[in-house]
């Protein structure tokens, strides 16, 4: 007996000791000054450590840039005199050609090709001069020298306008005009000497204004990103990493990485550990595919859910973005004149020349399976006008290992189509012959289709369309992602429309729930009735027995 008891107490002592040791170890671990951050964050911090680039050239000291330029071509020539291959390289890029793949002649994706959207619809193969203000050449044609300054000058300036003014003043010839010309030339010279890698402002001078105005198109790209806060974009925030666009859109030979129509931005999700010269265009490039702390469920989401889906809870967080555009309502006049009205954001929601438009801020994205390819309808494709025409739409499906659930802005449109040929139509908008001048659809569509070398039956109507933009900018800080319930919810899941898979918290069998709660409730009622029976029969009949005794 005694021995047994001693053994017992020895056992208890050993167990207590073991517990104590483990507890101390746990406390020590918690107290250690260990950097407790997600591995994906550490990886990204390592990958982007040397933020200060060094330069070997001061452009203000270059003789070729110290002159009074009288044309754009002359300025370009000055650049090329050192950067001998730059223009040739650039001529091959989509930024110049406005074609996804100039070698591919049939579908010819691109602004200068058969692509169209549901904003200003088409550039009419660049014959619509209004669109060319964003073409990176001098003047409003495609046939000029490359304007290097648009992307590389750190001075914000309208270079085309400067050249036009210089030419104008010089042509007038009087002293005062010459003086004016010299002043502008001095400004232009300063801008030409103020050279660097493209800043947010450079890329933004076109990409923030896509669709004809600030924030019209993308929803995650607008002028709020010129000097964003960390809350708006955790990477670009001036109070944080202060990334420029090219920090992720890495570039080789003037080819800037990013999605081009049907070509995904990246075909492989490689981190820099796997390929040190890979484009940094994906989140995984720097953050890896297992970015969260080990053991966290989110690491097990990355195979099916894009980082953007949770880390960009909503877009257009500072400036509003256009959500719909109804061309059918264009052409109304007030007192015989074109007019515009503004909405609560101070944005035009009606314009005689454009129709009815809707703007929104803090927009929740739509979510779709996406493998990086955006399929789109071109000017040549037959459409089915009985439903909403998906002018552009993400490709992907759940079974595909490369597809992720990805957030999108979906822009709704109502735009002209040919009732006989069953194709979408490309009206010419700007210029004398354009719709914006005469508000005559027949004329604008005829000229527009002719400019595209495409037929027009003369019979047209309007059809509802949809156009998607992948949302990838405006990444919120790590403490402001979507909460689980935004998707894992029965009632208002953001993924309510994504079918074909079981998602905890969202999906359940109504029958099972009914049967299950029925069984629980049935049990409860059953025992309550039984208890009532016992109570009424006076506690298991005990009392009665006692009375009988």
């Amino acid at each position: 007996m005694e021995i047994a008891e001693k053994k017992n107490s020895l056992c208890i002592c050993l167990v207590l000791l073991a517990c104590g040791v483990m507890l101390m170890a746990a406390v020590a671990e918690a107290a250690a000054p260990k950097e407790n951050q997600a591995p994906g964050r550490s990886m990204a911090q390592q990958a982007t450590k040397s933020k200060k680039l060094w330069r070997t050239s001061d452009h203000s000291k270059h003789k070729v840039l110290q002159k009074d330029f009288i044309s754009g071509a002359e300025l370009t020539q000055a650049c090329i005199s050192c950067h001998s291959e730059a223009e040739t390289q650039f001529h091959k890029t989509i930024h110049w050609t406005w074609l996804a793949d100039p070698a591919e002649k049939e579908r010819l994706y691109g602004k200068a090709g058969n692509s169209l959207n549901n904003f200003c619809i088409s550039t009419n193969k660049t014959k619509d001069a209004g669109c060319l203000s964003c073409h990176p050449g001098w003047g409003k044609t495609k046939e000029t020298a490359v304007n290097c300054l648009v992307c590389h000058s750190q001075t914000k300036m309208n270079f085309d306008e400067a050249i036009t003014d210089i030419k104008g003043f010089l042509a007038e010839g009087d002293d005062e005009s010459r003086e004016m010309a010299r002043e502008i030339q001095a400004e232009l010279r300063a801008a030409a000497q103020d050279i660097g890698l493209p800043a947010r402002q450079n890329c933004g001078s076109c990409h923030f204004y896509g669709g004809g105005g600030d924030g019209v198109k993308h929803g995650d790209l607008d002028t709020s990103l010129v000097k964003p806060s960390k809350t708006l974009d955790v990477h670009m925030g001036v109070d944080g990493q202060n990334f420029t666009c090219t920090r992720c859109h890495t570039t080789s030979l003037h080819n800037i990485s990013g999605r081009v129509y049907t070509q995904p931005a990246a075909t492989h999700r490689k981190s820099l550990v796997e390929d040190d010269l890979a484009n940094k265009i994906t989140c995984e490039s720097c953050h890896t595919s297992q970015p969260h702390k080990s053991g966290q469920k989110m690491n097990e989401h990355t195979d099916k859910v894009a980082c953007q889906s949770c880390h960009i809870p909503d877009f257009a967080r500072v400036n509003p973005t256009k959500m719909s555009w109804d061309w059918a309502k264009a052409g109304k006049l007030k007192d015989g004149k074109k007019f515009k009205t503004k909405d609560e954001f101070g944005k035009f929601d009606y314009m005689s020349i454009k129709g009815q438009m809707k703007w929104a801020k803090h927009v929740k994205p739509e979510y779709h399976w996406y493998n990086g390819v955006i399929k789109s309808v071109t000017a040549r494709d037959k459409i089915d006008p009985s439903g909403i025409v998906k002018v552009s739409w993400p490709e992907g499906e759940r079974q595909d290992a490369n597809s992720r659930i990805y957030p999108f802005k979906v822009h709704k449109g109502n735009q002209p189509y040919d009732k006989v040929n069953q194709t979408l139509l490309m009206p010419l908008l700007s210029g004398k012959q354009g719709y914006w001048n005469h508000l005559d659809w027949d004329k604008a569509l005829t000229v527009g289709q002719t400019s595209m070398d495409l037929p027009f039956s003369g019979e047209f109507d309007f059809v509802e369309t949809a156009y998607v933009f992948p949302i990838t900018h405006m990444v919120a800080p790590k403490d402001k992602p979507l909460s689980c319930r935004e998707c894992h919810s029965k009632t208002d899941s953001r993924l309510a429309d994504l079918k074909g898979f079981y998602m905890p918290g969202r999906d359940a069998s109504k029958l099972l729930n009914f049967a299950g709660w029925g069984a629980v409730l049935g049990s409860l009622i059953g025992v309550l009735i039984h208890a009532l029976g016992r109570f009424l029969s006076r506690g298991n009949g005990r009392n009665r027995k006692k009375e009988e005794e």
Partner: protein
Amino acid sequence: MTTNGKMKNIYLYARFERLWHWLQTLLIIILLLTGFEVHGAFALFGFWNAVEVHNFVGLTWLIAFAFFAFWIFTTGEWRQYIPTTKKMLAVMRYYMYGIFRGEPHPVPKRKEAKHNPLQRIVYLILAAILLPVQMVSGFLYWGYNSWGNWGLSWLSLQVVALIHTAGAFAILSFIVVHVYMITTGHTIFAHTRAMITGWEEVADEESVGDWEYKTKAKAA
């Protein structure tokens, strides 16, 4: 059961058994709360916390259950769960009728026979089928992302999830009935006291049939 006749205290539940019972009670209650929160029945801890807690407690239960299985087989206590039809009708009759009349329980508890025929079958289904199904389906659910590596790509998450949910409903129903049934002792808390202290007050020996003992030899 009645207070008629002689009563005596017997030591019915070993320390491990009691520890096991209450540990499992705690784990199951936490699992039910967090599980039904994930299921969307209510909001209590928040989805994130519910998932984390559910996963941790679920795995804890799985490991703890291995100790229970080991104990029950090494001690031979598993024999207490061998189902029988003997006196089954009598027990059912008692709970549906006799209990209201103050009749004695037809199968009083004994050290070597602590479960009546109805309990035997219910606990066997619970311990051998329902809980394992719940643990296996839960483990699979937890390991969803590894199904490919485990060669289980053919499994459907929906099927696993529905089985797991059905199991949860069954356990919850069991708890409702179980919690009620433990009030049917000779006093409301007699059975509860037994599961806490190990000692149960039972009627005298005579009414226990030989067949109920796990070993042929009647305990002296």
